[in-house]
């Protein structure tokens, strides 16, 4: 994966069982796991890039599992919080993604069919075929069109989107 950001923020959470409440403590389960919830919030809101968030959550789940909590429950809570944060964070982003699809389709029809046709007329067959191939690849790298937000699909796409190979190739070819 290409790392474009100059800085990463890694959450340094608890590493010792003594830093978290025990399932043998005399408190209701909701209270016992409140620390886990708040630590998940810190990781999700603070750590970056995305793989550092996943890493921080995995470390927390590992520690709480060592303390004696069921892994499935911890996994469910962290997934819920992740979804909750993404839905809070990205109403604008989701709208932008919805708009992105028709824009991409229009771009596909223009760059994929009209432009190669014109370039065949003006330059020759090979550059236009290459242009079509590159553009189809870039389009396939977009997330699947879903009516709801699924984080597991969202992350790889975000990572691919950060690699600016479309503009790099189209620039010299279009000139």
């Amino acid at each position, binding site marked *: 994966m290409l*790392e*474009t*950001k*100059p*800085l*990463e*923020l*890694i*959450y*340094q*959470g608890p590493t*010792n*069982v*003594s*830093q*978290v*409440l*025990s399932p*043998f*403590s*005399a*408190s209701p389960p909701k209270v016992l796991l409140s620390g886990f919830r708040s630590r998940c919030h*810190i990781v999700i*809101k*603070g*750590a*970056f890039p995305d793989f550092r968030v996943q890493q921080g959550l995995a470390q927390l789940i590992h520690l709480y599992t060592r303390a004696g909590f069921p892994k499935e429950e911890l996994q469910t809570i962290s997934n819920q919080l992740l979804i909750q944060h993404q839905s809070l964070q990205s109403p604008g982003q989701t709208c932008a993604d919805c708009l992105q699809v028709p824009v991409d389709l229009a771009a596909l029809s223009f760059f994929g069919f009209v432009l190669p046709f014109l370039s065949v007329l003006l330059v020759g067959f090979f550059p236009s075929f290459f242009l079509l191939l590159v553009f189809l690849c870039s389009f396939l790298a977009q997330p699947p069109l879903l009516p709801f937000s699924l984080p597991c699909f969202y992350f790889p796409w975000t990572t691919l989107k950060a690699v600016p190979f479309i503009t790099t190739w189209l620039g010299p070819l279009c000139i």
Partner: protein
Amino acid sequence: MLEHQVPCHTPLVFIKHAAVLDKLCNHKQAIVDWSTSNPAICCCKSWSTYKPAALNPSDSHWVLSGSLLHSLLPPELAVIAEGSLSNKVFPSKKDYHNQMRLALKTWTKRNGLPSMPQTNISDLCHHLWSEHTQQITNHITKSSITKLQSTFEGAIFHCEDKHSSSLRIYCPCLYYQSIEQTFQDPSIFEQLPDEPSSIVTSLVESLQRQHGKAYPWAVGSGRQLPSGYNLAKRKKEFRSGRPIISFVDSPFRPMLNILARLIFQLIPAACPNHFATGDVYTLLSILKSAPVDADLILVNQDLAGFFTSIDQDRFVRSLFMLLDFLRPKMNVSDDEAFSVYPGKSNNPGDIIKGRTFRRLNVTRKIVIKDVPDLIKSALNMQTFALGQKCVRQSRGSPMGSPLSPALCLMVVSISEQIWSITFHQLLSNHHLFIRHIRYVDNRLIFGDKRLTALAPYEVLLDDGFYGNPSFLRLNLTKNFAASCLKQNHWN
């Protein structure tokens, strides 16, 4: 339950269970013993089987780590030793029975219902207790805590600095040495010959005389002198530690809380350019905004001895400067008053000990001309009890006072505001990416490498920026606000 008209949906609210810390730790008693000149008796000879758990095995007196004792103790004790000191202790059968009986009695009385017969309550308790004991294993109880105490008889149970939830078992000889080293720094603490009880009486009288008429709520109901204790530091081999002064149940506590709240509200208005704006997430999001292609530098600094390094006179001078900074924005003449909302530690509707909580509907008013005197009175409350001895802190503001964080942040925020006003022209003219953020006493300056050549940053990065005797110490780790910063491809 139904036959006695107790509706099932009604919650019975019990008092919170005690934590392991309350039941197991005896550090406060250790300070009393130390102050009454009880000689320390070394326990290390009887701990030879636990040597693998010692954090300082090469020293003559040991500190045992609870988590390392895990494999050396039976399971019911290992849960306590390895676990958090914040874990709650299950009540004994007798306590549970009493609590249940009292809760039902109070509830029926408050709702005008006939009380349940004792035999029925006992039957219900026996039934619930047998269900409870079937479901739990290795749970933390008072009896297992007593067993752990007897296993390490004579030891001092406490935590260490920056590991507040981890159990440490100290040899008394080492713990006494740590108390002495911590509170016997003559540049910060001075021993007084008085008794704590005589000091607290004169303190309450003096506070009532000075502020009782204008602020009858200020002194409050607490009548205990602030009490000191020590958090031993590992980096000082547990021979010295961090002095903490607890203001729980001390007189003047309501006023200390209100003054702290007042200063916290005034800082952003008076010093809009101070570096600690926003919560920790806002500060961390600033880090995300670093440009991809810049040649960056990162300077991570700590303010050494944040609470004990600032002169007391400087707090009062800083308050006057804070008022000066506020003057263009609001009327700060002597007879004006600040309204301070006491704030919420609980939300309306919360149930505390079985009663619905209602927020105190009072806004405290502090006349501006009284604020310096109130702060001086608060700063004069530097005497604290160390067991049976009295000690006075002569420099800084006590760690543990509710006012200390506000006062210290006021001083550093004013320095930052003055810096930004002084270099306003230069700072607004450069087009470099530069960010400065501060989390309490941890300051981070990062941005374009060329910032070091700019005059404002030469001043800002200076060790003595916040004035003597406080100084900035370069933090060589990349830790900031419980996170670690990693540089990917920059210097």
